[in-house]
């Protein structure tokens, strides 16, 4: 009986220039799959073209490299667990691979409602197991991020190392103490900045600036758990649906106006309006009502308990001055969002105030009478597009905090070895690199095929060869950077072309003349 | 004698060999006289006269002889002394005045430059002098402010005469100053020469290939052929009784305006020899209808009249040759190549 061959595949990736590691991994994968009888071409695309293909034309592609990045609010597993694989997100949400499993949906929904940590841990483990079995992604690595700083400038005992984030975190910026005359913290960013706006998350380095300028009600603490910040206390009712928030009385905006309860409510309420802040809307959507109790107290009511609310909402939403933003939001025209509003004063209540921003740098200066006043005078974020230059500037002392290093980590290590005043700190990322199968399309709609293809890939090879050893082999959407939530059992994966071939044959596939063929009766529908 | 050239030899080194452009020429320029040098294209006229100023392309070199100007040997002067002598004593009027004037400078400023840099004049005085010079050659002084390209050919030629006269030199060398001009302007320019010679006692060496020009303005004539002087002497002697076959030939090849009889012109067939390896003996031999066996030997200069010399083996038979040469048939078919 005749069998039909699997079509030639295009494996999309970022262009080599933009992301050499990812491209290299893609090539390694293509080489490996070649042994399984697949004809795979790697196509490196610029970011926009890649997202156009993969994100906006979800039916049209087969396999693509992709990544999820770590952000502070992702130190709660909810973001990844609920969003990445829930079938509700297939059309336009995060589930761009089109993975659909009712069992998974159930687990993902359930974990949100469970406030008890151990019970929730079991659900999160279960979610990881399901994904591990179905392999909608081929998880590749949790990248190791390297940060470096100048030990001659900073007292290294004062740096805060936060799980999943390393020493580049809000707490560090507040706590780090300069040793000598250099009282500026100069860090780098490897991309052009596109906005500094409390209603916008650009994904670029500017969110670090936002975090310093605008306070939040809570912040993620060194242990990865949220703790009150601009609030004196956040207390929940027993059902976990009503939070009572008491704000600090020593807070004021950089323009001198006090931070009021109204500002807090405004900050949480305004993103809920349609079309104001699309990026923040999902965070505030769970809120059904807010009420001011007195000048320092207000309540936030949720429809149902939300385990991630403190992390992804109260620690996330910027407290903006109502007196500045309310008129601006009222003036928005149809189709315009707060994201594109140019608000030059950038007044917040955080420990740093906005000084200036030109093409090459952003300068913030410390507010000495902030309740958590920083020890440094200024934080300067310098745009250095060229990795090499950023390393050079670290060596020359022009930079004293290398916060965005996209180059070869080995070189950074070498630099630190050669120079006593440079110290490097590594951290495993909350985010991860992966390959997505388009589960809508044969043969990737078949979990067996996905599994086989996944097992054909040697993750250690990828970590070693593509990521130069600076990455940890991955097999879960919850990073080991979150030890409490991480399901170590997912690590046990068989590896090898033989295993993969055997699995494919079990599922009815065959390799004829070095080409992979469908089981009898199945044909290519594309 | 103002200028006296003795046995001057000049060579060009080229890729293919050494060109003996000027091969042992001697002539004198008396004070206040006009000496014409005539000859076919490429016979070395320009080379000869430029060497008098010691301005030659790098490939050229002196291979012997001397140039005495007012008693001192030009070839022995240091570059400094030479620069001092240039233009102050010997000035030059080029063939193509267009290329001889700097296109980006006003003509007046080019004259003033010489007057101030070489004549030591103040700018204001130089300006007056330039106007004077322009008047001398018949140009309006307002044209001093023009650029060379705004001048017509004749005006340019006159401007370069004015430039040459700037430092009142004793000798002016003019290399084909009128060849590019048409008759009327040619006549005007020649008249300017004559006038200056009369009025200022200027000596002139005038290169041309037109014997009628020589006849019109010169006192003496030097006929060159293939790097050598074949005949020289006072104009009236040379023209009335040419004593070298080449001169005779040139004369016969020249159409006359007023002659009443219809004389047929006789071309000298062929062309001048290459100066790379000039032939032994008389260089005109191959084109000469009167050539004999003896002509294969090197000719020596023969005096045929007072101050009149010829480099022809048969100079003594000149009268006979002149008679025979009237018949165009004599000239036909000499060159068979």
């Amino acid at each position: 009986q005749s069998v039909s061959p699997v079509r030639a595949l295009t494996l999309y990736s970022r262009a080599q220039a933009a992301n050499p590691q990812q491209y290299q991994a893609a090539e390694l994968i293509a080489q490996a799959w070649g042994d399984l009888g697949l004809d795979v071409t790697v196509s490196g695309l610029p970011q926009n073209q890649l997202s156009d293909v993969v994100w906006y034309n979800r039916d049209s592609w087969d396999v693509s490299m992709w990544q999820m990045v770590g952000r502070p609010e992702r130190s709660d597993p909810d973001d990844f667990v609920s969003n990445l694989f829930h079938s509700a997100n297939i059309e336009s949400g995060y589930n761009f691979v089109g993975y659909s499993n009712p069992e998974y949906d159930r687990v993902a929904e359930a974990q949100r409602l469970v406030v008890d940590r151990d019970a929730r841990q079991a659900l999160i483990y279960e979610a990881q197991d399901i994904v591990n079995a179905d392999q909608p992604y081929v998880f590749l690595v949790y990248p190791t991020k390297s940060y470096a700083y100048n030990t001659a400038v900073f007292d290294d005992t004062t740096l805060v190392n936060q799980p999943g984030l390393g020493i580049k975190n809000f707490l560090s910026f507040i706590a780090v103490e300069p040793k000598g005359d250099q009282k500026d913290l100069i860090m780098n960013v490897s991309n052009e900045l596109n906005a500094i706006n409390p209603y916008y998350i650009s994904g670029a380095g500017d969110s670090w600036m936002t975090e310093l300028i605008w306070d939040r009600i809570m912040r993620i603490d060194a242990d990865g758990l949220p703790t009150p910040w601009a609030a004196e206390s956040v207390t929940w009712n027993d059902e976990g649906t009503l939070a009572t928030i008491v704000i600090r009385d020593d807070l004021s905006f950089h323009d001198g106006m006090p931070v009021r309860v109204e500002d807090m409510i405004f900050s949480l309420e305004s993103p809920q309006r349609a079309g104001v802040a699309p990026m923040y809307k999902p965070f505030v959507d769970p809120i059904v009502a807010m009420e001011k109790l007195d000048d320092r107290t207000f309540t936030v009511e949720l429809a149902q308990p939300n385990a991630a609310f403190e992390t992804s909402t109260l620690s996330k939403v910027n407290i903006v001055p109502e007196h500045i933003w309310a008129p601006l939001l009222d003036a928005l025209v149809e189709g315009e969002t707060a994201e594109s509003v140019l608000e030059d004063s950038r007044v917040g209540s955080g420990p740093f105030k906005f000084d200036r921003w030109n093409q090459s740098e952003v300068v913030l200066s410390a507010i000495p009478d902030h309740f958590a006043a920083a020890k440094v005078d200024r934080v300067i974020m310098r745009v250095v597009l060229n990795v090499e230059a950023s390393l050079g500037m670290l060596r020359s002392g022009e930079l004293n905090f290398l916060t965005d290093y996209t180059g070869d980590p080995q070189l950074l290590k070498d630099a630190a070895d050669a120079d006593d005043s440079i110290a490097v700190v590594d951290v495993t990322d909350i985010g991860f690199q992966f390959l997505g199968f388009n589960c809508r399309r044969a043969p990737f709609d078949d979990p067996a095929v996905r599994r086989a293809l996944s097992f054909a890939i040697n993750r250690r090879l990828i970590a070693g060869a593509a990521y130069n050893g600076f990455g940890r082999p991955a097999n879960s959407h919850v990073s080991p950077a979150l030890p409490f939530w991480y399901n170590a059992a997912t690590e046990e994966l068989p590896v090898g072309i033989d295993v993969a071939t055997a699995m494919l044959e079990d599922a009815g596939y065959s390799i004829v003349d070095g080409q992979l063929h469908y089981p009898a009766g199945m044909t290519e529908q594309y | 004698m103002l200028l006296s050239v003795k046995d001057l030899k000049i060579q060009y080194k080229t890729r293919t060999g050494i060109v003996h452009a000027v091969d042992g020429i001697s002539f004198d320029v008396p004070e206040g006289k006009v000496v014409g040098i005539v000859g076919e294209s490429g016979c070395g006229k320009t080379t000869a006269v430029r060497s008098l100023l010691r301005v030659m392309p790098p490939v050229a070199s002196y291979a012997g002889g001397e140039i005495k100007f007012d008693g001192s040997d030009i070839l022995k002067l240091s570059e400094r002394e030479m620069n001092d002598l240039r233009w102050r004593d010997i000035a030059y009027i080029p063939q193509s005045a267009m290329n001889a004037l700097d296109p980006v400078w006003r003509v007046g400023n080019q004259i003033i430059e010489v007057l101030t840099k070489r004549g030591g004049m103040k700018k204001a005085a130089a300006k007056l002098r330039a106007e004077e010079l322009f008047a001398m050659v018949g140009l309006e002084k307002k044209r001093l402010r023009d650029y060379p390209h705004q001048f017509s050919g004749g005006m340019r030629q006159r401007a370069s005469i004015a430039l040459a006269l700037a430092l009142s030199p004793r000798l002016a060398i003019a290399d084909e100053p009128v060849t590019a001009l048409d008759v009327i302007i040619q006549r005007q320019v020649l008249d300017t020469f004559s006038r200056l010679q009369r009025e200022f006692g200027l000596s002139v060496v005038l290169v041309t290939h037109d014997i009628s020009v020589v006849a019109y303005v010169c006192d003496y004539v030097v006929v060159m052929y293939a790097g050598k002087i074949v005949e020289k002497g006072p104009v009236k002697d040379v023209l009335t009784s040419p004593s070298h076959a080449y001169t005779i030939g040139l004369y016969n090849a020249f159409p006359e305006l007023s002659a009443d009889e219809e004389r047929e012109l006789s071309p000298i067939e062929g062309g001048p020899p290459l100066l790379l390896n000039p032939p032994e003996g008389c260089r005109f031999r191959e084109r000469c209808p009167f050539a004999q066996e003896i002509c294969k030997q090197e000719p020596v200069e023969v005096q045929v009249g007072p101050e009149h010399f010829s480099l022809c083996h048969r100079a003594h038979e000149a009268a006979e040759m002149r008679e025979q040469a009237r018949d165009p048939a004599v000239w036909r078919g000499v060159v068979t190549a």
Partner: protein
Amino acid sequence: MPQAIEPMGTASTDQTAAALLPHLATAPRRSGLIAMLGRAGNAFWRVPRESNYAKVGLIIYLIFALTAIFADQLVHYEPLEILFADNYQLRRNLPPTTDHWLGTSYSGRDIYSQLVMGTRSALAVGLTAAICVVAIGTLVGLVAGYFGGWIDNLLMRLADIALGIPFLPFVIVLASFMGAAQSNVVLGIALLLWPNSARVIRSQVMSLRERAFIEAARVTGAGKWRILFVHIAPNVLALSFLYTSVAVGWAILTEASVSFLGFGPSDTVSWGYMLQDAYASQALGRGQYNWFIPPGLCIVFVVMAGFFISRGYEEVLFPKLKG
């Protein structure tokens, strides 16, 4: 419709003429094109003999051309193949060894093989672009220069506009718009670079047009196309050639720049791609001179060879500039 002409002469001249006839008939006749090609060939070989510049330039070209032709035999590895050592490690950043003559890149590829293969794409881009540029330039120059008037005006305004467009940025935009392929780089070069040669050829044609021998062709009844292509074109051929050898250089430089900026195709190894790879992989900081110096030098040599040749030809064929 041929029209006969009656021979009419005096008896005596007829006789002499008749005696000439056999000589005319036996001599090679109007082998115009062949003679001209022969002459062109002569000039072609004369130049390197007379000019050291042209000699050096041609030798460099020859070496690169041979390299390009025999690239497959010369390489040791597939230029894009990722090479592995044991224990899951790449053979990355190796210094030059007997196995990898120029070492390996950060992504574990053999640099020497890339360099050799890069010759191919460099020459391919260089030659095709140069030929396009000069073909357009020559044609436009010929037509504009010869016909003058509004045609000239139109073409020259077009040339002005093309010259008013910033070149490299345009090629970049074009490459990103039409897709990263070398053919698009060639297209960009062809679209913007022709005015240089067109202008020079046009002015040459305009001065040729005034030359007496062109007038002679007209009085003897030659049509305008014949004049343009038979009488004028051969006289500007040398100039076109000159521009071709310069344009090869420009094209290679441009392709390299475009690739370097990351707008080149990622599946074709070119020197610009190698340099981009080296730059992005921090070869500078690592001091991997074996990686970023050779491709640069190759570019310098090829482009320089073009300049050398054009200089040699200029010296010999247009001796006004002879230095």
